[in-house]
């Protein structure tokens, strides 16, 4: 179980203090699929990074399976079963797709068959990709899918994906949602997915709308989707003005 207690995160910009996250508390039970959604700049990624340890909160506490991990390093949290798929994954000159999957799995003798399974689940063929370097020769979408494959290889208890659909073509996206659905169905992991995609939102047990550094709404996809639409369209003064004119 993941528990966030009174998480706040502020940064200084000159004389001004910017509050990115404001006293957020939430609990996510095991094997749940939770989607964080909401407007850009609302704090979703910061909140996810705080769970992984990529960002240190100004105040608050993070408990993972009852253990206080607030002051643990990224490495320590990774070893406790938390993983994180980056929105914009880095590229590595000299590290191959096989190297990355091997590192992620923690199994030095990771078989080609296993690699193939992970890559197939994100719509890539092992024969074409396994020995390729994860460098600029790969497209953004390819790097993104390899990133997700690395999280599958990690096979951790808590998987966090930051906008996994970004940069991925429609065909691969369909494959990806099947993969999320499958992980969820088999109850192997708790998943937090940051997403704006209706298809992914509809997979969620719970949708959390993060905006302006706070949790605006929580509920099922059926509850939340109409509210999101109302917030994004109905709440736009420019659009409203145009309609009136």
């Amino acid at each position: 179980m993941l528990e966030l207690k009174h998480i706040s995160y502020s940064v200084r910009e000159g004389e001004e203090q910017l509050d990115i996250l404001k006293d957020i508390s939430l609990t996510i039970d095991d094997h749940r699929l939770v989607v964080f959604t909401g407007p850009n700049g609302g704090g979703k990624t910061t909140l996810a990074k705080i769970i992984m340890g990529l960002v240190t909160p100004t105040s608050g506490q993070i408990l993972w399976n009852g253990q206080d991990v607030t002051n643990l390093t990224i490495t320590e949290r990774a070893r406790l079963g938390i993983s994180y798929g980056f929105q914009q994954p880095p590229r590595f000159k000299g590290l191959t797709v096989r190297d990355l999957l091997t590192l992620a799995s923690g199994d030095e003798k990771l078989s080609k068959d296993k690699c193939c399974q992970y890559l197939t689940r994100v719509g890539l063929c092992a024969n074409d990709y396994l020995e390729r370097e994860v460098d600029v020769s790969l497209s953004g979408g390819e790097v993104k899918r390899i990133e997700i494959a690395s999280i599958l290889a990690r096979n951790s208890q808590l998987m966090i994906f930051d906008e996994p659909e970004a940069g991925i073509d429609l065909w691969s996206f369909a494959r990806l949602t099947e993969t999320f659905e499958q992980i969820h169905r088999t109850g192997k992991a708790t998943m937090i997915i940051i997403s704006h995609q209706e298809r992914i939102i509809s997979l969620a047990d719970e949708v959390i709308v993060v905006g302006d550094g706070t949790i605006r709404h929580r509920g099922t996809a059926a509850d939340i989707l109409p509210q999101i639409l109302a917030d994004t369209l109905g709440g736009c003064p420019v659009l409203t003005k145009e309609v009136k004119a």
Partner: protein
Amino acid sequence: MMENEIDRELLEKIADMLGKPVGAFNIRKDSGCDGRQSTEHIEITSKTDGKSGIDIRVKDGTVGETCHIPVIITKPGIEEMVYNDFYIGENCDVNIVAGCGIHNCGDQTSRHDGVHTFYVGKNSRVKYTEKHYGEGDGKGGKIMNPQTVVYLEEGATIQMETTQIRGIDSTKRYTKIVCGKGAEAIITERLLTHGDQVAESDMEIVLDGEDSKGRVISRSVAQDQSSQVFYPRMVGNAQCFGHVQCDSIIMGDAKIKSIPAITANCTEAQLVHEAAIGKIAGDQLLKLETLGLTPEEAEECILKGFLA
């Protein structure tokens, strides 16, 4: 041959040799010959012009054979200048594995200057691998200054892979390759310096023949207070294609200078160069930490991959 542990370890590091190699070989140890074997197709003989070194002659049509010619220095104070000439016949496909390892536990300098000259016949392919490594806790310097000059005849190819593994206090490399018609040179250079080490690599690829190709991929890591200078130069004298790519990772208080140059002496020459120097990207370290590696393990993994 290969009497002790130091010899064995050095030979494994620089030439991947475990025991007596298959095929032709010449092992040079402390300025003497520690073992030699010629084969039906590859003949190794000592130089007869008074210079130190060997001649390697590969007969026309030799395919799939490997020739090992490692050099090891295990006594402090040895300074040598060695000339090795390779005469590769036509239509060959061979591997040449060179490399030099120095074990210096004394206070005197050990130095190996090697001049390798290749004459590669028509339509032959040569893969040339050269690794350099130094070890030993003495104060004596470990110095290597390799020169490699290659002449490629029509349709010939050389794939040259050079690696300075670690432990070389000072190196001054010079590489020159002249490509004839349809010839191709692919050079991959890997270099690591640490401590107060200095390294300089001067390279000149001359694309003389029509449809010749040259490609240089240089990757280096400079740690601590070490310094590196690269001068990769590509000259196009005919319709040709050349590409120079230099990438370096800079760490600690190191200094790196990269000065690639491309010169076209023909309107049909197409030459490209790229050079980049930078520290390890923070997001690379973070990504590997999220996979459970410590920051130190992540750094080591990135460097190992970069120099692989």
